[in-house]
């Protein structure tokens, strides 16, 4: 077993000759909250996209608990234990809140139910449906969404949509959770609540979290360690205070 939940080795990708991201080396320990920051267009979301199989890295590779995941399809990577949220929220808008979470539970081995069993309405179908719903409700309760469970995801207020996305990601029982700008569009109070929630998720679900964020109060408040990307390359890495006081980082953010 590897010491690190996630380890990337020289991860990089180029689009048509342009190196969007190069040589990213992340080492994330269990139960760590790890921040990935950097100016707009630094390649942070591209890193997420590589880690979840949306893009195939052109160089380097990455490991989850020592197992190489590069080259797998998105759903396979999710089954192996990486779940994510999106910068621009992507919910199943025309489905109810509880069903959004149930989709997340789809691949869990305990909820296995073949197509034939579902079509013929064998007992297992009913049991699985009932249990999935119960589990989904438990998750929704944790995230304070139980009362809205029968609303369409589309009609939830913004902050709750963000929470629902996290709940859905956790429903896939990941080992590593990737959060893409979870505090985007939130006011300071909501951000503070979000920080509590992220800590709670780590403790309650025994989770390791990698997050992209622009809100420095959130980053310095909850991250254990950071990596700063700029123009697709690693500018600095280490614990929060050191990194944020690094003159290169300050320069990248505030200009010369």
């Amino acid at each position, binding site marked *: 077993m590897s010491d690190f939940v996630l380890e990337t080795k020289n991860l990089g990708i180029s689009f048509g000759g342009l190196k969007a991201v190069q040589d990213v080396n992340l080492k994330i320990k269990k139960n760590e909250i790890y921040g990935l920051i950097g100016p707009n267009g630094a390649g942070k979301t591209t890193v997420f996209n590589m880690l979840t199989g949306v893009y195939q890295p052109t160089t380097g590779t990455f490991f989850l608990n020592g197992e190489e995941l590069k080259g797998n399809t998105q759903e396979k990577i999710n089954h192996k234990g990486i779940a994510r949220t999106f910068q621009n929220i992507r919910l199943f808008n*025309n*489905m109810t809140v509880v*069903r959004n979470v149930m989709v997340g539970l789809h691949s869990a081995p305990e909820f296995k139910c073949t197509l034939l069993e*579902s079509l013929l309405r064998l007992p297992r179908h009913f049991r699985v449906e009932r249990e*999935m719903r119960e589990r989904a409700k438990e998750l929704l309760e944790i995230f304070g969404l139980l009362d809205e469970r029968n609303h369409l995801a*589309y009609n939830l207020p913004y902050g709750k949509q963000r929470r629902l996305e996290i709940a859905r990601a956790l429903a896939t029982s990941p080992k590593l959770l990737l959060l893409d700008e979870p505090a985007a569009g939130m006011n300071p109070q909501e951000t503070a609540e979000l920080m509590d929630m992220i800590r709670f998720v780590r403790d309650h679900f025994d989770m390791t979290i990698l997050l992209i964020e622009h809100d420095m109060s959130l980053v310095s408040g909850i991250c254990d360690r950071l990596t700063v990307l700029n*123009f697709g390359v690693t500018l600095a890495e280490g614990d929060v205070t050191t990194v944020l006081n690094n003159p290169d980082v300050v320069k990248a953010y*505030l200009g010369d």
Partner: protein
Amino acid sequence: MTSLLQGLKNIKWKHYINYIAVGIFAILFTLMTFGGSLPQSTLYMLEEITMNILLSVSLCLVVGFLGELSLGHAGFMCVGAYMGGKLAVILSKTALGNGVLSFVFCMLLGAVVAGAAGFLIGLPALRLKGDYLAIVTLAFGEIVKTLFQNSSSESFGGPVGLRTPRFDKQYLFIIGFALVLLALFVIQNLIRSKHGRAITAIRDNEIAAKATGINVTKYKLLGFIISAAFAGIAGVFYSFSHNYVKAEVFDYNYSIEILIMVVLGGMGNISGAIISATLITVLNTELQTILTGDRAVLKDVIYALILIAIVIYNNAPALRSFRERFTPRAFVRRLLAKRKGNAYNADDDARWDVVPTKIDMDEVLSVDLKVVESTMRPDKEDKSDE
């Protein structure tokens, strides 16, 4: 009394409403035929109706639930009609004759071959979306039509068409009803299961579905195969009912007519698809006697106008708030709120009346260029300072 009411309340009636409605009509008409009070023309109409319900319900799976626009549904039907019809011709010369058993074999063959064609069309659906896929399905339908048109006269009759033995029984329409019930059983049970949930998740947001661990390949193909198989069955039924299969019938106008049934039925609404298929078939048959010659297209004008109006009404962004107040759904909601005296929760169902949102225009915008540009000029003001 109260416990009985409670028990009736607990049954999810809306899950069974389609079976019940179709079943009642089937029984009603069966009794009437054996009572001898149904004219031949009504029997033919019932055959048409059940066939069109099969077609619209199966297309509803792909368009309404999977969210892919298929303009080649008549192509699958064509495959089924020719395959089933040909097998019927062969079997009618054997000991099986023109009996129920050979009917079943023909159905199976039609379903399997059409399902295989559905698999083939599902493959491009994995890579293409929206308009492109619509055109590919249209192309598929036309290719199938052309191939059968140019077949040799010994194989599928070529341009003349294939003469098939009519399953000349008074009760052919009863088999039609049975097939509708079968289609409802399979498609409704599929949709109301975890597998159906996965399919609708793909419809709502394919990227999120993949990230949530849904095997998009598998479910897209599944949707296309099942839909095509039932279209194939409808095709076999066609060959048995019309006793003559001609490729021209299955052109893309037919596909569009089926699509109209699905859209008028409210997109992913199976009851709606059944009702609109029935209404359109009845109207078509009735109007045929009233409107003759070139005036017969008057009904097409009306269909087209209704289609345009419904799609615009259901989807125009500017009409959103208007829509929320003046839809049947909103009306029911208000009524329930008044009766129960509490706020109404959206029922535990997805919203279907709208055309799928899956292909969001913003999502198709180029990201490559944006990566390039923004990497070169990082936006400095936008960043929060500590």
